[in-house]
Each structure stands twice: as C-alpha cells, then as structure tokens.
C-alpha cells in the first residue's frame, strides 16, 4: 500500500525551478531512497513533504489524505517525522529533554494542569520518561541522558536526532543524509539500525550520498537531477540505468 505520495509536485524560488513535476511514492513498510547530484532538489523535496515549503504545483498525500496545505506540525501529528541534513538538535537542552520533545505529539497535558502538577501530568511525565529511556537504550545513548545535547560528539548527535524522531513511533521517518560525516565502521551500524527501525514497523525514506548504504538497504530508489525525477526502481535497475550513470554515478575508470 502506498503510504506517502507526491503528485506532480514542484516549487520555484524566484525564477529557479528547484523541484518540478516530481511523482514519488513510498510503499508502507519499505525503505526508499532519493539520490541525485548535489543541488538536484533532494532536500527541497523533503521539505515539501515535511511542509517547510509550500509547493507551487502538485500535491502531497499521506495515509491517503491530501496534506499539501497542512502545516509542518500538523503533519508531524499525523505521523511524519524527520531528521535534518545539518543536525538540528536543541543544543542547550539535555538529551532527555530533546527526546521528550519527540513525544510532543503523543502527549496532551495542558498548561494549567502542568503548572499545578495535577496527577494527569505526573502520570504522563512518568510514562514519557520511561519511553524515552527505552529509546535511548536502543540507540546506545542511555549513558548521556543528562548531558547537554550540544556537548555530545558528532556521531552521538546524529543518533540522538534519530532517537528524537523515532520515540513517537511515527508512520514514516524521513532521514536527510544520515551517513554524512560517519566513517565506514559506523556506516555498517547505521545501515543495520535503519533496517531495525523499518522492521519495527516504521516506513523509512532517506536521502543519501553514500552509495553503499543506499544500495545495500533500499527497496526502491528514486533519482533526481536538476529538480526532476529521471529514474526510479530497485537498486539493480538504478545501477544499470544509463541515464543515471551518466548524470550521477559517473563511469568507473578503475
């Protein structure tokens, strides 16, 4: 079943067509990847899906509903979570608070009972903290629960961002270049982690430059070039597609 879909989506910044007429669909329970040269519009496509930009053409559908006009936070409520290309943590807040914020959509305590410490708040806090600890353990972050997010090492920050995104168990998780800045050893762990996340029932969409990650875990790959989709298919198809090789992968000279 298609869970997330864009139909003829596009956006122009001034005269520049950053993304145009892209059809992109994601099967529930799959891992999909978007690849393409730098500046091809991958992150822009993510931002259109997540609602940070409003498209100038086309529509976005999520869980069979047209969400084109919805705000970012409303989409998050529907179960669309994401990480950012350049880590976007709450740097001055603790690891605990960061991940607790990931549960924002799953909690509902109002300001008044918060201020009065009414039983419903205390219960919600307890349960939230328990869930956060479980997620932190899963991503090996439980030792750092009281540290400031900004004081963690780079790789841990990337993990924390993923923890924050999956703690609410979203329907779809968008990962923007999760492998950037990681070395080869970490890549293996990351790939396994993404597969585990998918196996737990979260559909994953990722943008990635590191081909070995993309090729080893993706069920489907879409290729963007100059804002347009030039190909999609399974990894085997993409690798042998001459247009893709020409635009992106280049010829292997060695």
């Amino acid at each position, binding site marked *: 079943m298609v869970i997330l879909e864009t139909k003829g989506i596009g956006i122009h910044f001034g005269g520049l067509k950053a993304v145009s007429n892209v059809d992109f669909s994601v099967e529930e329970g799959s891992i999909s990847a978007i690849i393409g040269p730098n500046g091809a519009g991958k*992150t822009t496509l993510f*931002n259109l899906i997540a609602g*940070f930009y409003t498209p100038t053409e086309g529509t976005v559908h999520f869980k069979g509903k047209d969400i084109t006009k919805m705000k970012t936070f409303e989409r998050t409520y529907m179960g669309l979570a994401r990480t*950012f290309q350049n880590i976007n943590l709450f740097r001055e807040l603790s690891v605990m608070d960061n991940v607790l914020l990931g549960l924002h959509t799953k909690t509902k305590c109002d300001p008044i009972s918060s201020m009065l410490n009414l039983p419903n708040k205390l219960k919600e806090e307890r349960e939230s903290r328990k869930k956060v600890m479980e997620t932190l353990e899963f991503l090996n972050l439980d030792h750092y629960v009281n540290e400031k997010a900004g004081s963690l090492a780079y790789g841990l920050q990337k993990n924390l961002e993923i923890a924050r995104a999956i703690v609410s168990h979203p329907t779809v998780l968008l990962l923007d270049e999760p492998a950037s800045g990681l070395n080869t050893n970490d890549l293996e762990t990351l790939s396994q982690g993404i597969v585990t996340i998918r196996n737990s029932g979260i559909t994953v969409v990722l943008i990635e430059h590191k081909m070995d990650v993309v090729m080893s875990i993706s069920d489907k790959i879409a290729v963007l070039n100059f804002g347009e989709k030039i190909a999609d298919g399974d990894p085997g198809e993409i690798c042998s597609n001459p247009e893709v090789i020409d635009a992106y992968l280049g010829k292997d000279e060695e």
Partner: protein
Amino acid sequence: MNFFLQQLIQGISMGALYGLIAIGYVLIYNAWGVLNFAQGDMVMIGAFAILIAHVFMGLPLLIAFPVAILMCCIIGFLVEISAFRPLIDANNTRRLIATIGVGIFLRNLIRVVFGADPYPFPSVFGNTAVEIGGLTIIPQNIWNTVIGFGLVLLLSIFLKQTVIGKSMRATAQDREAARLMGINVKRNMSITFIISSALGGFAGMLISPVFFVIPTLGTLMGNKGFAGALLGGITSNPGSMIGGISLGVLESFGAGYFSSSVQASISFGVLFLVLIFLPAGLLGKKESRKV
C-alpha cells in the same frame, strides 16, 4: 496644492535625517546581527558634541563640525571596544541587552554632566524662510535633505567600490572567512561602528537647531530611526533612506492634515503595521528559512 508641497518638502527634509539615523542601525545590524538600541543615543551625543564645540567652546561652525564629528567617532570607538568587542561571539540576546545597557549609560552620563534641561541651539543655515514660487522654504530643510542624501550616497559608493568597503561587507557576511582572506576583522568592526556613530552624530547636529539639545533626544530620534530602518527593510542601505523619507513624509502629512499630537504616534503606528504586514520592509531581504 501648495500646502501639500510644503508638507512634502518638510517631510522629506526631516525624513532625510531619519534615513541618516536609520542607516546607522542597518550598518550595525548587518555587521553585528542585532538592533543597536544605543544608536539613537549617538544622535544625542552628536547634538551635544556640536553644542560643546560651537556654543561652549565658541569654535566657528566650519571647525566645530569636524571637531564634533571627531568626538562622535571617538565615543563610538570607545563604546565598541569596551562594550561590543568582548561580545563579538556572544549570542544575540546578550548583545541586544548590552546595547540597551550602553544606551542607559550614555543617556544618564550626559544627564549627570549637563543636567536634564534642554539647551537651545542656533540655526546653522538660517531660519529665515525664502519664498520660491509661492512656497515658503526654510534653508535648513534644503540643507538637511542635501546632506542626508549626500552622505548616504557617499557611504554606498564607499561600500561598493573601495576595497576597504568591500572587505567590510565581507566581514559582515562571514567573519571567520574574512580573517582567512587576511582581512583585519577587528579593525573593520571598529570602522563600522565609527561610521554609524558618525552618521548618527551628523543627524544629531543637523537636528539640534530644530529640536532642543536634551539627553532624551536619543530615545526620540532612535525610535524614528529604527522605525525607518525597519520600514525600509533592516538589511538594506538604500531601503533605510527610503524608509526614513517615507516616515518623515507620513509624519509631516499627519501633523499638517490632522494634528501635531498625531505626529508622535505615527512612527509607532507605522512600526506596528510594517511588522505585521511587511516584516521584510520595503527593500529588505525576505528572511529565508534555512532548513
């Protein structure tokens, strides 16, 4: 029709001064990242500087002007190295509050030294109205307009054409990268503050014959200045002039067609409307969201 033109000229001449103050806000905002709430007080310093040089010391205007400008530059420089330079890498909040602190300091320092009473200042270019084609024109107004525009033009030529001007823009855009070019960032920041202090001071000198010289002049003029800067778009040099002029003209029509009590609230009214409907101002860059 004449009345209309009259108000227009009056408004433009006042607006040119607002623009001059506004551009000081813009320069510092671009280089420093926050509104400098002490910029208005540099206008007041300028007014007192010319008062000291011309009235107290008895220097002729031609000498008093450069002396007063020099005083403004020195004070601007001292403020920069003592209060702003140590905070060059601090977050916006801390820098914003520092500028508020500097404003309080300067205002009250002047009040301690000179008292809270207003000083009159003689007209520089003559207050005798001249009749031209049925319009009564006060020479001071013409001069204000000419000098205001002239200075802003000079500034933009300086920033666009000279190496030092370009390096100042580079410094404003990325300090670390500027250092890697061999640009002396500290010096450039100082120059930026000195220039905006001088421009603010200049406005203060031109205003002093119109208003009285008083320690709270800075608060009054500062408000007009940043209303103008925001109206023009806080990042744009030409925008600040356009913003200042628009504000001056609006005020002048407000006073002419309604009452002078309206005039006082116009800048705040404009500020409100701009913030709500046109946050990027007339010429400013739309704040792009970086995701």
